[in-house]
């Protein structure tokens, strides 16, 4: 396929999943600037390897590339001994709460949940984000994260147990 034709097909099948890509990257990198850089690189990488895309759900295929890009960056970062410790101050709620009491409670709860997700080890965080926010079935998570389906299930279960514990639900 010539490059413009390839770009057109890529635009139709892969580019529409930009929000899913960014959401996953944002949760994995825990920083908006890093997430944007990772998504940018992941898209270029995905385009380069687009010939390997066999059709089907472009989202799962793209998320695999995004995930690998992010983990590579995170690995490089920790290898360079830069702290990847969770910085609570930096990750405090990003949106101002609305006025009503109900909205305040809901916002506080979301903020707490966001902090709990960010505090999860990355191997639990990635499956939780893919399952709960992107609603990928187990099989597609397994493909995107290069894991057996059984491992996806046990990581989801452990991730959820940790989240409940973190949220103080007994």
């Amino acid at each position, binding site marked *: 396929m010539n490059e413009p034709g390839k770009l057109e097909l890529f635009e139709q099948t892969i580019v529409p999943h930009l929000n899913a890509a960014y959401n996953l990257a944002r949760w994995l990198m825990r920083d908006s600037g890093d997430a944007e850089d990772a998504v940018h690189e992941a898209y270029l990488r995905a*385009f380069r390897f687009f010939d390997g895309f066999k059709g089907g759900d472009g989202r799962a295929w793209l998320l695999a590339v995004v995930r690998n890009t992010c983990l590579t960056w995170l690995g490089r970062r920790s290898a360079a001994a830069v702290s990847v410790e969770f910085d609570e101050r930096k990750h405090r709620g990003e949106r101002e709460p609305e006025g009503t009491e109900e909205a305040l409670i809901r916002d506080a709860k*979301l903020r707490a949940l966001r902090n709990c997700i960010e505090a999860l080890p990355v191997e639990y965080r990635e499956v939780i984000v893919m399952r709960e926010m992107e609603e990928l079935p187990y099989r597609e998570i397994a493909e995107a994260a290069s894991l057996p389906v059984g491992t996806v299930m046990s990581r989801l*279960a452990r991730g959820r147990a940790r989240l409940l514990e973190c949220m103080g639900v007994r």
Partner: protein
Amino acid sequence: MISCRSALSLIEPLLDSELDAARKADVEEHLRECPNCYVVFERLKRLNEDLRSPGLRYEAPERLRSEVMSGLRQAAGVAATPAPIRVSRRWPANSWAIAATALLAFSACWNLVLLRSQKSAGNDVTQQVVASHVRSMIGDHLLDIKSTDQHNVKPWFDGKLDYAPDVRDFAADGFPLIGGRVDYIDRRSVAALIYRHRQHVINLFVWPSSTAVRVPEAASGFSLVAWNKAGMAYFAISDLNRTELLRFADLYRR
């Protein structure tokens, strides 16, 4: 009845819609009769709902979209011409716009023919929509095509209907598209798009008509909202409260 041990291990696959009908029935039967397991189920269900709050999902900044596109164009060796390409993404093919125009003309004629019978049809249509919604909740009738991606659902309707429904996903706004099916309303085959909001199901029926569908705000305990747009009649029904259903309708009408 299955043991607590197996029920507990199947609660998450149940919530993740990964069980077949028989397994699902087993677990649900167990949960009805075992308060201990039910507590675990409720806790996980609530966590699921919380994790799906639209406020937790990050949206890509618009700037990133254009940066990615220009990066890709560079990589493909295509001259940077942002405007036309961006438009073509919203309208995947020109034929689409032509088809929409043709549809508009077609449905205008169609409605002239039907005009006389339409007057009393409002109530009838409502009843049929309610019946279809209820039927869809029973057994496996809800989805003929399962998807979270409008790009799978839309082509699926090709050849099954004589028109192309506007299939859109509002996952980012908390109303993910979960699939579609063909149903029969008002003596014709119509597209039914199925959305979910938290644990509630929304059936959205779409068919060509520019005659306003008059519907009550509620019927048989379900909220109803109907509107017309671009030669199509839209009829949404759900057990959601009407305010939330109106929010969904607003997203669609936008």
